[in-house]
């Protein structure tokens, strides 16, 4: 074979490999959500003075799941909405010694490229604030999860006893 032909062949091979590698993973983020479950939650009817206590006075809930990102770019879970509660926020529980601290993640939660993030008791959770209805084991409801890049992904948590 002539050098030129080898050169062109080489370039073609490189391009093919490049395309194959690129096809192996989406160029942007690619979020998959699985094992979504929720705790039962109580709803307390509005009572006197409850507005001073924040929206959580009607009750709060927690939704857990496994989030994986099969893409090449990170994404962030930034919020959500649901018909069963007034507000949806992303929270983290952190143990410091024997004290549990809970905080809202205002910037949401990063799901790294080719990574997986678990939301489970004692760690990250999607918090439901101001329940509009109670949640009992066996109930069905949906949550529209909001991702920075991937947009909305709707999930149906299974309400169960942990």
């Amino acid at each position, binding site marked *: 074979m002539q050098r030129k032909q080898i050169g062109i062949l080489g370039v073609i091979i490189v391009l093919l490999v490049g395309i194959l590698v690129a096809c192996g993973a989406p160029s942007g983020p690619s979020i998959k959500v699985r094992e979504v479950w929720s705790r039962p939650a109580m709803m307390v009817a509005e009572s006197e003075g409850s507005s001073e206590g924040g929206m959580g*006075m009607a009750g709060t809930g927690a939704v857990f799941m496994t989030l994986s990102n099969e893409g090449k770019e990170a994404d962030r879970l930034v919020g959500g909405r649901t018909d069963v509660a007034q*507000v949806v926020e992303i929270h983290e529980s952190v143990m410091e010694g024997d004290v*549990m*601290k809970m905080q809202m993640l205002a910037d949401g939660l990063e799901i790294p490229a080719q990574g997986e993030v678990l939301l489970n008791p004692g760690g990250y959770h999607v918090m439901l604030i101001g329940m509009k209805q109670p949640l009992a084991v066996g109930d069905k409801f949906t949550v529209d999860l909001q991702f920075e890049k991937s947009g909305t992904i709707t999930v149906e948590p299974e309400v169960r006893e*942990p």
Partner: protein
Amino acid sequence: MKRISGLALLLVAGLAACGGPSFRGSVLAEPVAVPDFTLTDQYGETFRLSDHQGNVVLLFFGYTQCPDVCPTTLATWRKIHEALGEDAGRVRFAFVTVDPERDTAERLGLHVNAFNPDFIGLTGAQDELDAVYDTFDVYYEKDTSSGSAAGYLVNHTATTFVLDPDGRWRLRETFGMEVDDVVHDIRQLLD
């Protein structure tokens, strides 16, 4: 001969002393005689610790709007209650609020009794509560910084405190404790 038998007796006594109960939770170096206290339960009735002599008492400090840690603990308690079977009658599970502003007796009842009708939810006047927080060195802190729609969240000690039937604080069971371990420890205290 006398000296040898004396030493032998000491040895036996020493071994006997070492053969005490073994616990899986964190044992206090010295049991603490808990000062008697009164709080109010979810039915508006007075709860006096000394009324429960003869029972093992589990105490946890949390609040009803806590979506994660507190329900997790109550769920674990529910499994412990089940695993104890008949012995559960000699154990008291009491959830004390660190958020008396929002946790009325009614809210506490709805919350804890959703897990088990025998669970006790406690609140009270601030000085009554402070006395109990003090005894167990309970840390709690209102956190308004995160801007959550819940208004404020409360950071708090997540340990379960275990008192023996004589009203002495004996053990700490950390958050995330295993049901089997706690059941084991409770049985040791009941014997």
